């Protein structure tokens, strides 16, 4: 599903975000990318959905080399990937419904089908009753679940989650992880970036540890 070959990412003034990353993630896997903040986790995810280009190296996603992807093919790649952003990226002046509807509008899905999808996903994340609320009336955990629902709007083959338990307490964190586990059980490949080593340990999934842009550990 995802293959990285000798991937380097250097920002201006020789800031090395990623150094010689080699990585294979199989279809249907659930993988943690762990490490302290600033280790390069977010950069790694952004390379996968082609929000950034690596300084060198090759990246294959679902058989396509995203480094060589022409600009006009980028939207197509992104439509096959769901992304849960660290800052959620929800529109605060729109209802939960409108936030999710944005995706089906972009995809050009007829509104009847789209509305059904929104209803199903809000049921999955347990927020059906808050569909007409705006995000700022929701708690952090609820916003996180809206972000997850939105990332699933396009039935992604691959789900990327950036610190999905960031500000949540231990119980809520485990809830979110259980939800991501369910999604993975239905066949979606899930990659979770997190600094929360407790969660990682508890779940016992495949874990890749980054430190200062280098892949330092991989287990099991």
């Amino acid at each position, binding site marked *: 599903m995802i293959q990285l070959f000798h991937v380097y990412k250097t920002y201006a003034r020789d800031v090395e975000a990623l150094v010689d990353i080699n990585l294979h993630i199989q279809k249907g896997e659930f993988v943690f990318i762990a490490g302290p903040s600033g280790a390069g986790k977010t950069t790694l995810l952004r390379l996968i959905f082609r929000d950034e280009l690596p300084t060198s190296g090759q990246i294959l996603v679902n058989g396509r080399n995203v480094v060589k992807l022409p600009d006009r093919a*980028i939207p197509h790649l992104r439509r096959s990937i769901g992304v849960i952003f660290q800052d959620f990226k929800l529109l605060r002046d729109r209802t939960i419904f409108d936030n999710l509807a*944005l995706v089906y509008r*972009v995809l*050009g899905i007829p509104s009847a089908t789209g509305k059904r999808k929104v209803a199903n996903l809000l049921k999955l994340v347990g927020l059906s009753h808050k569909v007409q609320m705006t995000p700022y009336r929701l708690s952090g955990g609820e916003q996180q679940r809206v972000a997850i629902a939105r990332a699933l709007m*396009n039935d992604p083959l691959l789900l990327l989650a950036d610190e999905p338990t960031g500000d949540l307490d231990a119980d809520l964190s485990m809830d979110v992880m259980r939800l991501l586990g369910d999604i993975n059980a239905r066949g979606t490949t899930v990659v979770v970036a997190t600094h929360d080593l407790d969660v990682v340990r508890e779940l016992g999934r495949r874990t890749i540890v980054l430190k200062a842009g280098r892949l330092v550990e991989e287990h099991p």
Partner: protein
Amino acid sequence: MERLRYILQDALVNIRRSGWGGLASIGTIAVSFVILGIFLIITRNLGAVVAEWKEQFQVTVFLEDGITAEQLALVKKRIQSERAVRAMTYTSKEEALQSFKRELKGKESLLEGLGENPIPASLQLRVHEAYQTPEALRQFAAFLTRLEGVEDVLYGQEWVDRVASAVRVLRLLGLSVGLALGMASLLIVSNTIRLAVYARAEEIEIMRLVGATKTHIRAPFLLEGMIQGGLGAGLALLLLFGAYRATLWQLQLTPGQIFGVGVGSFLDPRWATAMLLAGASVGAFGSLISVGRFLRA
């Protein structure tokens, strides 16, 4: 199809949110197009006057009283073989007097003291437009004067030319003023759309990240600009038409009476359509300037 509907909805939402900025765009475009339109209407009508004059323009050749039938036939033949001549009519002394009397209606007594008919016979020549330049006319008149039996040649071209060149200057002035105002509208529309783009920066970012194509992101803004431009031009046409009717009414005229030569018309429908299209294009272009700079893959 579904996507088209969403794009249209987004454009309408944008317009509703643009508020005063949107109205300012529409207003500036309207003002620019009103000014452009005034020039167009004036030059169109003056142009029609000039064309009418050129159409009616004629050279009159007065013939000597003692001209013989043979001389007359010869003069006619010589003139008709000239390339400059489009048509020729002959007015005898008798006909000329009759028509003069008609013009003096009620004051025929003025002519009573005259023993014999003082008015000369004449030939009226219609001249092809290509030969209506001052230089060509001077040469043509000189040729006519040299013919046997010709008394005098009368033509008045210079003032027609002067009006024609005034129309040209006016048209040029109108176009430059229109162009300058068009540029101003472009900037204002582009600024309004820029504000709309900034207001929706977050949304655009999310759309981009969930796989919206550039076209899809651009289209609502493009449409917004086109609608603003089209509305501005439409408003200008309405204002112009109102002002045009009011002017005619004020001058107690009906179309066709101004200068008595079949002018006094509003903009040609083709020009009106062109103005609407130009307004929409200004809007679209202004919007492209703003959105283009904002987007990345």
